[in-house]
């Protein structure tokens, strides 16, 4: 199928952190730690477990654990239902931990699509603060 409704795109963010994979794994899989850096949640590290991530902006993400490989990889769905297709998102987030000489390379890949996605068409349901910072930059450049 080649129509835009099924077009998937992905975003990758990587960062090397001066901590062992085991420590990162705890931060990625223990609910009280996940809450400290990501969002409020009822995560359980069991494949098939359904949970929610609740953002400060009031949005609730529907998630399901897809794969777990302790200290190495974690994958779950990251779905946001919204009546307005511009805000709707169906995606999968995968974290990969690779030991390095001085710590761990953490890689996050999010792959997904918006049901009625058009080119350069999206919405904003997360990261509002970042968005506004970006908007300020854009506006400054547009002057």
């Amino acid at each position, binding site marked *: 199928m080649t129509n835009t409704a099924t077009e998937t795109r992905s975003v990758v963010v990587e960062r090397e952190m001066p901590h062992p994979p085991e420590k990162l794994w705890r931060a990625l899989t223990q609910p009280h*730690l996940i809450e400290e850096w990501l969002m409020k949640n009822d995560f359980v590290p069991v494949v098939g477990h359904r949970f929610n991530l609740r953002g400060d902006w009031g949005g609730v993400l529907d998630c399901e654990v897809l794969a777990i490989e302790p200290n190495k990889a974690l994958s779950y769905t990251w779905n946001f239902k919204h009546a307005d297709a511009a805000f709707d998102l169906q995606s999968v987030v995968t974290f990969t931990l690779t030991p390095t000489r001085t710590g761990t390379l953490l890689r996050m890949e999010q792959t997904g699509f918006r049901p009625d996605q058009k080119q350069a068409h999206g919405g*904003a349901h997360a990261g509002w603060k970042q968005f506004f910072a970006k908007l300020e930059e854009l506006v400054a450049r547009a002057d």
Partner: protein
Amino acid sequence: MPTAHDVLFKTLADPTRRAIFERLCRQGEQTVGGLTAQAGISQPAVSKHLGVLKQAGLVRDRHEGRQTHYSAQLGALAPLIDWTSEMAGFWQKKFDDLEDLLKRMDQ
């Protein structure tokens, strides 16, 4: 003919107008009076800015008795951003928070 991008950029290029819009995004629906109290400019000036925001589709008004309530229309911003760049910024910030947490955690 100006594109949707042109209208949005032009509308949000004014810092006062952008501040009004951001306040509506963060605090939800507001009346002109409520916005004026925080804006540091006169009520007619706030009303004028709201009119421009409304024309760009960025705010919607709702009449209730003698009061008009304004709310942000986030969907109007959709042409400006692609979800992948939006999420990349989101994750960069979350990774910052994760690094802060790791520093505080025991081994």
